[in-house]
């Protein structure tokens, strides 16, 4: 048998949310390339199927669900019980906006928290129960954002939710360490995906140029984020928990 390489994911079961698009889709593909068996989660079944068709190997599984529906999520995730254990989670499902303070209503606040925060905690709670997380340990990665650490006009609502996850990941890391579950965040700068292409700063060349200038290494590609996630899922990072890895082309270096 070949020696086990610390960066490979062969034999591991990895749950990827937001797998129907952008960063989550690339995470699913990248995990498959390094040998993982991937469970793909998002609402859009057709787009999940498209992701599946881009992956290596055929042992993966689609599990369509709306993560904001706590009861539905619990029911659907039951299919993962006694699979032999989940070794990792990349939680990329999320929503974004640029909205001035004057528009931040109670409704908008609760809607954003529901998707970006409540769903994340619910998912983590469900997947770390006995019978779900692998006995030998598991790694949970939240895709947060540079906006959880630094600010920008119009980003309050989004920042609140991403900052909440960055903060929560530390306490989760401490609480789950006895179960050998590691919890980390990956905070991307602007990555070229359907989310960033539909953002207001992509609507005209001047705004886009300004955003580009914030990234000394240029805008990111989904692979840049996926590779960081693969590292955090692999045994190579087994001593890393409670951190927030900035994957931002230098955005927060200044």
């Amino acid at each position, binding site marked *: 048998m070949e020696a086990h390489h610390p960066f490979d994911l062969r034999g591991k079961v990895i749950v990827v949310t937001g797998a129907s698009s952008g960063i989550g889709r690339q995470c699913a593909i990248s995990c498959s390339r390094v040998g993982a068996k991937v469970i793909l989660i998002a609402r859009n079944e057709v787009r999940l199927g498209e992701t599946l068709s881009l992956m290596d190997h055929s042992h993966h599984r689609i599990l369509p669900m709306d993560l904001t529906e706590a009861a539905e999520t619990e029911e659907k995730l039951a299919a993962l019980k006694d699979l032999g254990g989940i070794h990792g989670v990349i939680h990329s499902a999320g929503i974004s906006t*640029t*909205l*001035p303070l004057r*528009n931040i209503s109670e409704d908008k606040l609760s809607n954003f928290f529901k998707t970006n925060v409540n769903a994340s905690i619910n998912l983590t709670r469900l997947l770390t129960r006995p019978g779900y997380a692998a006995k030998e340990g598991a790694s949970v990665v939240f895709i947060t954002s540079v906006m959880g650490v630094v600010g920008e006009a*119009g980003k309050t609502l989004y920042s609140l939710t991403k900052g909440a996850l960055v903060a929560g990941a530390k306490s989760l890391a401490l609480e789950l360490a006895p179960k050998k579950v590691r919890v980390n965040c990956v905070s991307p700068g602007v990555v070229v995906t359907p989310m960033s292409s539909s953002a*207001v700063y992509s609507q*005209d060349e001047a705004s886009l140029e300004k955003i580009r200038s914030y990234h000394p290494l240029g805008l990111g590609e989904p692979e840049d984020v996926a590779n960081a996630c693969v590292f955090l899922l692999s045994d190579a990072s087994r001593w890393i928990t409670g951190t927030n890895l900035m994957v931002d082309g230098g955005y927060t270096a200044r």
Partner: protein
Amino acid sequence: MKDKFIESFKEALEIDRPITMSDKFRDYDEWNSLGRLSLIANLDDQFDVTIEDEVFQKLITVEDLFNEVAKRAAAKN
């Protein structure tokens, strides 16, 4: 609908005085990128209307904007 539109428009730009339909809204001191974002959000939330950037660029007066919103809102019903 016109009154509702003007209220929403003034709220988005944080304008606290009477305005005229013939005003060129980009000339207002209050017109800036955040005001524009707020306007986009209000039109979406309150009128279920989204205006593409190319079309928006051609709207000059408050009246132009109102007409475009009214036309699009009517097309929805």
